[in-house]
């Protein structure tokens, strides 16, 4: 069987989006949810068939698009490119996406804007597929911006407040959405500049032309480094790495399935995908690659520390996501691309599982999100409890669960390349096991501390949860380590497009590393258990420093937010006319500069005219000084 | 050089501003220091029609001013100049029709 046309992938969800946005109001009950799920399922079927049948990479060109951006001044086309890397990604996006769609049918059942929610979800899946399958960087950028937009719409989905939380909640939600969008745009800037530079250096932005056929890219070392650093900025924005990390925890304002789909499993991993996709460039740029790894390690640590003392059931998971994304960056930065993608896949399974389980808990407790008012839910929500336990074990790196294999692969890679980074990774693994243990014990063990009447959700909760739980158990087997005598299936598959590093570690060393990783996992969970027994678990270590995420948000507000507001106000005051009734300028500007500004703000035509003439004079003087400086 | 030149200019003005003795008196502050006392009615109001008619007068005055050289050299200028003149007059005529219909020239 041949490979199916690639435009089918985004087509189905896009059709779903169109149907739901146009005809949503005519659909009764949960029809809209089923249409959306069906659309993603159709894409999944295509993705699965193509995954199995894919031999050589496939490149479909659709229609002529951007002018003058391809080689030899030809027009760049819209086209899709499927190789083993994008095949794996599409499977994750559509597969996990489908399960989350099904979950959402139950979760969002009572929402008045049910159809709109699924329309946005389908829109997201469609653009994510475009991002993954794009055959050129500009098209990838369109998907990149598009998923940002979808994320904005979905984080702010409850902009009007949710249930009875009221309007204040709504404003917070839309602020969170805007913050996410804007921080992403900072990253997009890097993406764009990297793209321009790439075009200048290589004359093309088409991925197969750039990377296929083993053609050596010709450019200076500095060019490679610069391109890669710009791309890194883009990846950092999308994947919420330091320093652009603060939007992701806020993004939890969105409905929980959104957090599972966009802010855990798929969109935030786009940065990892970008680095892996551009690996021929990063291989030529050792310094930039090191930066990727260092940023990854620091973010992993930052996320883990911030997760220690959170009280919101979703915020813990959000910081955990930040931390795990750091792991992936660490891996791809060190050249262990398959390990990074491996962790991406397994993380998609267990983190989606954990988020959906959290959603199930929140649903059961009538929108309660504070873990201090939970507890003892193991008896009341047995299914949710069971799958959560699997998720926790998976993320903590306990053997045979999926997270164990992928985390082990990353740590082994890190040890080989740079023992310090390995040390950081190991520390993060310890912290991860602890805060996930804290999460688990606070939610499911002990006595129930709330006042709601928990009840298990319906079968539409159960099916996705169980499926993801199974995947979180067996998902790791696609990438079994060599030293145990297995063949690594994922590595074999991805090895056709990504470089595979032959390990130089002895079997003994690998064993030691594995045991160390398992040991810290067990210790972390053990400490959590002991403190649970002692009843001191609710207050995590580091108190406020952790709760306020190491004060990063406050720092940004002080360093960027306030000055830019003041600057804007100052420029405004400068231009305001008589009608402006400039009050409060003095508050904005300090006393001496305020007096200077009042000369400008008078609103009289004559001062405007004077400023124009002065401007002209300044223009001439500027040139004159430059010319003089140039000649003397 | 430019700096020095500019600097001297600025310096001269600034220094005289600072050092120069200032003894203002009523006579000194008058618009024409040694002439007649200005009449107080500088701010008298005119009907707005005055300005309108004055503006229109200028426009048509210039039209007439153009006609003199054209008339003098008409024989040498040929057909082209004739049609150019016609176009010019026609454009002004449109404006003239407009102001007449708007009642600008009705004085009361």
């Amino acid at each position, binding site marked *: 069987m041949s490979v199916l046309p690639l435009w089918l992938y985004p087509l189905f969800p896009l059709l779903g989006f169109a149907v739901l946005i146009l005809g949503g109001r005519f659909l009764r009950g949960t029809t809209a949810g089923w249409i959306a799920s069906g659309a993603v399922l159709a894409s999944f079927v295509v993705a699965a068939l193509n995954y199995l049948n894919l031999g050589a990479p496939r490149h479909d060109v659709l229609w002529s*698009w951007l002018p003058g951006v391809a080689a030899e001044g030809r027009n760049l086309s819209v086209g899709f490119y499927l190789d083993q890397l994008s095949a794996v990604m599409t499977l994750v996006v559509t597969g996990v996406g489908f399960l989350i769609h099904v979950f959402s049918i139950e979760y969002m059942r009572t929402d008045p804007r049910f159809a709109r929610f699924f329309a946005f979800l389908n829109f997201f899946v469609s653009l994510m597929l475009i991002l993954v399958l794009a055959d050129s960087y500009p098209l990838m950028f369109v998907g990149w911006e598009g998923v940002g937009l979808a994320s904005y719409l979905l984080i702010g989905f409850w902009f009007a407040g949710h249930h009875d939380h009221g309007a204040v909640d709504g404003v917070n939600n839309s602020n969170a959405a805007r913050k996410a969008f*804007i921080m992403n745009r900072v990253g997009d800037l890097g993406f764009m500049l990297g793209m321009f530079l790439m075009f*200048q250096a290589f004359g093309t932005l088409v991925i197969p032309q750039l990377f296929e056929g083993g053609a050596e890219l010709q450019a200076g070392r500095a060019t490679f480094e610069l391109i890669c650093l710009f791309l890194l900025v883009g990846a950092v924005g999308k994947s919420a790495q330091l320093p652009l990390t603060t939007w992701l925890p806020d993004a939890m304002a969105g409905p929980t399935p959104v957090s599972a789909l966009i802010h855990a499993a798929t969109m935030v991993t786009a940065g990892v995908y970008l680095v892996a996709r551009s690996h021929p460039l990063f291989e030529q740029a050792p310094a930039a690659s090191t930066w990727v790894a260092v940023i990854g390690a620091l973010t992993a640590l930052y996320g883990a520390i911030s997760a220690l003392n959170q009280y919101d059931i979703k915020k813990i998971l959000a910081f955990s996501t930040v931390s795990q994304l750091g792991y992936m960056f660490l891996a791809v930065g060190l050249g262990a691309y398959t390990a990074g993608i491996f962790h991406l896949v397994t993380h998609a399974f267990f983190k989606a599982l954990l988020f959906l389980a959290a959603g199930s808990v929140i649903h059961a407790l009538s929108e309660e999100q504070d873990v201090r008012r939970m507890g003892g839910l193991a008896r009341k929500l047995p299914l949710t409890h069971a799958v959560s336990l699997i998720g926790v074990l998976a993320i903590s790196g306990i053997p045979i669960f999926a997270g164990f294999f992928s985390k082990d692969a990353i740590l082994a890679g890190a040890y080989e390349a740079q023992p310090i980074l390995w040390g950081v990774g190991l520390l993060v693994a310890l912290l991860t096991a602890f805060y996930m243990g804290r999460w688990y014990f606070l939610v499911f063990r002990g006595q129930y501390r709330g006042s709601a009447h928990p009840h298990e959700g319906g079968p539409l909760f159960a099916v996705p949860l169980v499926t993801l739980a199974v995947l979180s158990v067996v998902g790791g087997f696609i990438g079994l380590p060599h030293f145990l005598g297995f063949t690594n299936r994922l590595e074999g598959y991805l090895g056709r497009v990504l470089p595979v590093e032959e390990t130089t570690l002895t079997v003994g060393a690998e064993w030691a590393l594995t045991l160390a990783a398992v040991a810290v996992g067990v210790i972390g969970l053990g400490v959590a258990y002991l403190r649970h027994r002692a009843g001191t678990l609710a207050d995590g270590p580091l108190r406020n420093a952790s709760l306020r995420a190491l004060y990063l948000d406050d720092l940004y507000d002080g360093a960027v937010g306030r000055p830019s*507001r003041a600057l804007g106000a100052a420029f405004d005051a400068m231009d305001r006319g008589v*009608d402006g009734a400039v009050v409060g300028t003095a508050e904005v500007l300090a006393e001496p500069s305020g007096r200077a500004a009042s000369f400008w703000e008078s609103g009289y035509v004559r001062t405007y005219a004077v400023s*124009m003439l002065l401007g002209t004079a300044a223009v001439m003087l500027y040139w004159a000084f430059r010319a003089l400086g140039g000649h003397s | 050089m430019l700096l020095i030149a500019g600097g001297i200019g600025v310096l001269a003005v600034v220094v005289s501003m600072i050092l120069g003795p200032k003894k203002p008196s009523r006579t000194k502050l008058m618009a024409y220091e040694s002439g007649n006392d200005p009449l107080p009615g500088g701010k008298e109001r005119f009907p707005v029609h005055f300005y309108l008619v004055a503006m229109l007068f200028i426009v048509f005055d210039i039209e007439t001013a153009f006609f003199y050289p054209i008339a003098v050299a008409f024989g040498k200028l040929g057909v082209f100049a004739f049609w150019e003149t016609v176009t010019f007059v026609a454009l002004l005529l449109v404006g003239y029709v407009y102001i007449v219909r708007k009642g600008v020239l009705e004085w009361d």
Partner: protein
Amino acid sequence: MTPELRPPDIALAPMLPILIVLAGALVATVAFRTQRRVVAVIAIVALLLSGFSMLTLWGANATAFGGSLRADNPALGFGLVVIVGAVVTLLASMDQLPRVRMNFPEFDAMLLYAVTGMLLIAFAGDLIVLLIGLEIMSLAGYVMATLYGSRRSEESGMKYFLLGSVGSAILIYGIALTFGATGSLSLAGIREAVSAQNFANTPLLIAGALMMLAGFGFKVALVPFHQWTPDVYHGAPTVVTLFLSTVVKVAAFAGLLRVFGGAFPVERAWEGVAEVLVALTLIVGNTAALVQRNFKRLLAYSAVAHTGFLGLALLAEPARGGAALVFYLLAYTLMTAGALAVLALIQPDEGGVENADLRGLYYRQPGLALALAACLASLAGLPPFAGFFGKYLVFQAAFQAGHVGITVLAAMTSVVALVYYLRPAALMFMPAEGSAAAVRPAVRVGTFTGVALGVCVVGIVLLGVLPGLVYNVFDAPAQWVLASLAAK
């Protein structure tokens, strides 16, 4: 013995688009006892005919008056954008002007006179024609800004007039100095003199160029020549603001490109200065827009900010930047016109609306809210709207010409822009409880405004998805080089 007067070569074809508009303007002037609606239809027909006649001139490279008037492809491109903007203005005005008691045919007449001037600028082959066009456009613009009988409108018109005179004076001085340095007024002649290094002295030429830059800077609202913009755009009737902030800017940029892309491509000393001005414009426009509470004033600052983005195209080489400029101008015209047309409908008076009053617009007028959201998204530069590709193209053009620093700055300020565009956009979709605007009755969207909004929204979507439709037409580097003219 005086020599026989030799008539210049008068080719009617390249003048036809201008003459049609002028004829329409004259008809509108003397159209007494005619309903304004009829006059507006006549005006639209005249504009469409003019646009059609431009299409027939496509590729012909026709000239008249010995190259003083050039109907080459760039001119036609700018001309067509002007026509599009003017038609949208007229469509929006049909339903809007009766509501504000501004429903007289003088509006249409003035608009057509202004368009006549703009086409002259676009078609200009020498500085005198350019200046005449600029003055015709500006004078008509001053009148339009004052048409609405409110104190605010009169103040804004007066400001515009006085400051515009200063701008013109600077421009004329610049033209004079350039003429003094090169001995030529025609763009091709200046270009030749400059490339042959055949001019009196360099400072004179540069001073001329910079003064022209400052003069044009006033018209397009480059910082520090921008201060009239917020006052005038805010004070003028909204439909007039629409016209001033889109079409006038198109024409002024056409002039800028003509002069600086065409006549001074070799002597690039102005470039460093222009770079600074563009950088200032980007910073001031975008940051000042951040703190605006009035939506109309916000759009005024947005117009300043977009001048900065457009200026990037000017910094690039004409061969690449020209096409990007036309594309961006078209996109800018459509999206700004769309946003202001919606504003014209929903505002209680000509002062615009406060941002906060936009709250809940979606639930009262879903169609208008969606149209406005699309326009704002496009202004913010989000795909798949036209604004995204406009930004992409100008960034790329500037970047490729080596202006890396300013491209980075522009991209950064475009992030800032996102903030102030998203705020009103998000407010529209919030429930309107408790805001004063909630009790205001929904306005009826007239047929003509509907058509205007349709043109804008369909345009920005279409240009966003298939930018090649427009861009490819202009993306022939050769046609942007004035050398092809000089050879004639």
